[in-house]
């Protein structure tokens, strides 16, 4: 038995789309196998077929040498294939032990003490630093992930599928996760690892399979490939520059803030930027980096000694509306909960932030709004069937472009971009980087706030690093390296 899991010739169609077309995938015992592809490439569909959520139209799945066809995720889990979803599906108000028991323990009565003892033993065996008795709500994202992993291992899973496990945790927490994955490997457990981040694939995976538009592109040993090769496999074209960076002359100062305090988190932050400068803010989750943007933008209460946009001194910003009038714009962190009204169409979402352009006496000229929406859709090459398409049906990358379109329609003096590439595919990321460069080129000050260090390092002219709400220093030029940022972000001084 060479493979523990083998999927052969898997085809799956949904009304109107071929999601998977004759795809092959195999998994060795004790290996980490990365599954790569842009959004819509078919990764999730394949995972859902393996884990029993969907049934394939054609093709077979061999698990431990036998043909299997699971009717539900529970069946797959009982057979030893566990999936850890991105959204984690935990019960926030139950304890760790109870969460692990739900769906795993079949007896009707159960002793709380016994459950906690078993769970504590399991957690200790795994070297997880969590208590069985803690309430899940009080754990952070990466700890919650460990609970999900523990839950998978409770049933002695042979295969664990991890769907973008690093999308919502910090680089530091990802390191911890990778150590755990390596431990699991040594125990002979096989892992299917889905990620958007190429550098992680090289760090953790043994082999990698690339899908594109529902088709199998290839499987290769990670040692025998390169980042460039994987990107071109994923997007089907050469991306000579993953991180485009234009050389923009810096002119006069466009924005500055002194002694900024936001809520109870951010303390004494000062920085300034020039026209055409891309200024990065880095830090772990909870470092207060996104609160800096929300505070200045008037969404959460903040105070400062002095804030200047251009030559204008602004003593207080009470609302996003006022911030926009002062020429401060923000691309919010989460496009679904903060950026877009998902039930509305693309045109209305773009209009929402640019009503002034199309209204007279409170009455909207929809013909004009339609023209503007078409113009923006063209400008950002947003893939839509019509301007009336609801944004909830767009892919992540196109949603993000719709957010950029609505925020940047009225040209700001300075724009705060918070995690602008989170959860979008490589192609869309490059588009976002180009947009950022163009903004700088047009003399706009860009504050680029991100948890993804590679983009911070390659894109930004200067980088402010935050640690627990306090500024740890501003890196410049050659000082901007992942190592230096991580040292500051974890509270270690750079010498």
């Amino acid at each position, binding site marked *: 038995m060479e493979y523990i899991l083998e999927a052969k010739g898997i085809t799956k169609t949904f009304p109107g789309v071929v999601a998977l077309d004759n795809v092959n995938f195999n998994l060795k015992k004790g290996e980490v196998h990365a599954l790569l592809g842009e959004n819509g490439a078919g990764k999730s569909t394949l995972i859902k077929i393996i884990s029993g959520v969907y049934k394939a139209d054609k093709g077979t799945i061999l698990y431990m040498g036998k043909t299997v066809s699971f009717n539900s995720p529970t069946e797959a889990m009982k057979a030893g294939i566990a999936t850890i979803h991105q959204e984690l599906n935990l019960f926030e108000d139950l304890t760790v032990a109870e969460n692990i028991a739900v769906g795993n323990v079949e007896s009707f009565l159960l002793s709380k003490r016994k459950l906690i003892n078993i769970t504590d033993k399991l957690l200790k065996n795994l070297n997880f630093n969590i208590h069985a008795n803690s309430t899940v709500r009080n754990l952070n994202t990466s700890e919650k992930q460990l609970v999900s992993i523990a839950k998978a291992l409770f049933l002695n899973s042979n295969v664990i599928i991890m769907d973008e496990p690093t999308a919502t945790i910090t680089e530091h927490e990802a390191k911890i996760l990778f150590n755990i994955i390596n431990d699991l490997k040594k125990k002979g457990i096989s892992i299917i690892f889905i990620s958007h981040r190429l550098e992680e694939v090289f760090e953790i995976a043994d082999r990698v399979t690339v899908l594109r538009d529902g088709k199998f592109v290839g499987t290769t040993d990670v040692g025998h490939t390169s980042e460039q090769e994987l990107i071109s496999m994923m997007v089907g074209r050469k991306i000579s520059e993953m991180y485009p960076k234009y050389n923009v002359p810096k002119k006069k100062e466009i924005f500055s803030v002194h002694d900024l305090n936001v809520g109870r988190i951010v303390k004494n932050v000062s920085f300034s930027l020039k026209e055409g400068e891309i200024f990065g803010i880095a830090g772990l989750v909870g470092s207060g980096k996104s609160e800096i943007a929300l505070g200045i933008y008037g*969404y959460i209460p903040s105070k400062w000694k002095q804030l200047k946009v251009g030559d204008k001194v602004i003593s207080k910003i009470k609302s*996003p*509306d006022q911030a*926009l009038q002062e020429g401060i714009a923000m691309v919010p962190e989460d496009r679904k*909960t903060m950026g*877009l*009204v998902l039930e509305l169409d693309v045109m*209305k979402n773009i209009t929402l932030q640019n009503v002034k352009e199309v209204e007279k006496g*409170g009455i909207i000229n*929809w013909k004009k709004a339609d023209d503007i929406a078409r113009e923006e859709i063209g400008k950002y090459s947003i893939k839509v069937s019509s301007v009336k398409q609801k944004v909830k049906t767009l892919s992540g990358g196109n949603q993000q472009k719709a957010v950029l379109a609505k925020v940047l329609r009225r040209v700001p003096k300075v724009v705060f971009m918070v995690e602008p590439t989170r959860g979008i595919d490589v192609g869309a990321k490059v588009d976002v980087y180009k947009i950022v460069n163009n903004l700088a080129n047009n003399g706009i000050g860009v504050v680029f706030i991100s948890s993804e260090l590679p983009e911070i390092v390659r894109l930004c002219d200067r980088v402010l690093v935050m640690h627990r709400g306090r500024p740890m220093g501003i890196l410049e030029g050659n000082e901007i390296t992942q190592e230096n940022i991580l040292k500051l972000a974890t509270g270690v001084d750079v010498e």
Partner: protein
Amino acid sequence: MNWRTILRKMREYPAIVGFVGIVIFFALLSDRFFTLSNFLIILRQVSIQAIIAFGMTIVIISGGIDLSVGSTLALSAVILADFLKSGSIFTAVFMALLVGAAMGAANGLIIAKGKIQPFIVTLATMAIGRSLTLVYTQGMPITGFPQSFRFIGRGDVAGIPVPIIIMLSLFALMWFVLNNTKLGLYSYAIGGNEIAAKLSGVKVDRYKIIIYMISGVFSAVSGIILTARLNSAQPTFGYGYELDAIAAVVLGGASLTGGKGHILGTLFGALIMGTLNNGLNILNVSPFYQQAVKGIIILIAVLLEREN
């Protein structure tokens, strides 16, 4: 129009389909139902509920709810009645609308600035409004208005009863507001995603206050029509009207979580409720059963809605 587009439209406006179905049902069972005069009766009866439901529609679209509509109706009716006895019709109507606007403004202000759930706030103002009405009237009806005032409730223009004309005008107004104005777009946006609306520069608090004021004013209009029709203002006016209005809006396809709904749906939602009342009475169905029939219709409608 081919069958497919008709089918799609039917799915889009389930309330119209339901209304047509109910009309056919009653028309088959009684020859007294399907007449022009009976339809005018239904429309006139529905007008008071429908106008409240129009105001409720924009509130629900914006993600809120207004339980105080019945109390607002009663309070504005008794204020109207009091001013009718001493002053001009114009002043009295103006005062009634002012009371409606004030109740709505109070709701909106507490909801927006106090950041309290609309359900709780309007539950409280519902009780307070009712109490004020009872105190103001000492529990007694107010009667004795000028003959000309009754025109609003009982008169007609070219054969069409005035309440129906008022209802259709307000329908047209709300249709325009929801589809073609900044206020309409903002209502959908606030109900769909309040955070995104705020971050897009919408003055959410201000618009919430305006939205609840619309609901208050529309309740007052209903109060004026009801007073004119019955030629008296009673402190018990409008008991339970909030539930009929919410039912009409939900039957019309709006979601109580906000961001969805349209005024045409609400009109037909209200028509369904009114037609059921009328038809069941014509068929001599005991009033004891009528509430259950309405309840079942609402459940069926919401279950069908979920399919989409």
